[in-house]
């Protein structure tokens, strides 16, 4: 296989890590919504935690994206 083709395939495979980030972020927001509907009065104070959790999960997806970009361009 040519190196260029292998690079493109590798970069594509590396971005599959984003699946996990998608599941994680979905989980966080889904559970937040479930909790917020049960106890709406407590929901407002947890918005900060919600976004921090989402950001932490999202960072791992971004790592996969950066890895893909590194493989492809470097």
């Amino acid at each position, binding site marked *: 296989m040519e190196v260029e083709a292998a690079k493109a395939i590798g970069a594509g495979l590396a971005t599959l890590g984003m699946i996990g980030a998608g599941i994680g972020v979905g989980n966080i927001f889904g559970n937040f919504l479930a909790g917020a509907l049960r106890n709406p009065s407590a929901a407002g104070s947890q918005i900060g935690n919600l976004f921090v959790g989402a950001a932490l999960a999202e960072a791992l997806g*971004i790592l996969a994206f950066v890895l893909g970009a590194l493989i492809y361009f470097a």
Partner: protein
Amino acid sequence: MADPLHQFQVTPIEGLDFGQVTLPLVGTVHLAFTNSHLAMTIAFIVVVGFLTLVTSNAKVVPGRLQAAGETLFGMIDNLTESIIGHDGKKYFPFVFAVFTFILGMNLLGMFLSFTATSQLAVTATFAFITFGLVLIIGFAKNGLGFFKLFWPMGAPIVLRPVVGFIEFISFMLRPFTLMLRLFGNMLGGHVALKVFAGFVATAVIGVAGWLGVLIAPLSMGMTVALTALEFLVAFLQAFVFAVLTCIYLNDVVNLDHAH
């Protein structure tokens, strides 16, 4: 057609390129005032100008402008107070400066053609300043007791070295996740925006044939929606950076009574 990554190129501004310059201690460098400098300078001027504007002519009952400034101020003040606690006031200036500067650069990236925070060098600088500050405060406040951070009292004694090692690795990874999160979000968002904008252009010039009638309005709608999302992300990432800075500072400031 320009590729979607073209917008991230750092180029010298016409007339402000000084070429190869030999500096003392540093050596020969390519010195130029680039579009990255320009974006950061504008962000700095906007942030300082805005905060000067809202605090000049301050009244006990705030007007509209002053209320906007106070909301921004109060949000970060609340954040440091609720996360770091009693000592939070001391670290408020740093967190506020970082937050407003990143927010300024993120938001200006939506209006200008260049986003300073989509450069890894810029976000890396922010991340390592934060990390360095956490280290300095940690050692200054706790001395060698700083290493208690990697000796979790809650874990069983047999597991402590293992958990401590994992804690250490995750501690050392903090600056990298901090810089990659901001960089990746801004880069990814702007690339997606330009890709969809590119679809509109491709469909309009007729490359896609009659399908362009469908593709152009759909892509245009997507571009508008993504622009709205990007404004949210621009604010959110600045906020997340501030929150994480507070959390990392809290780790070392309240080391004694946290575990």
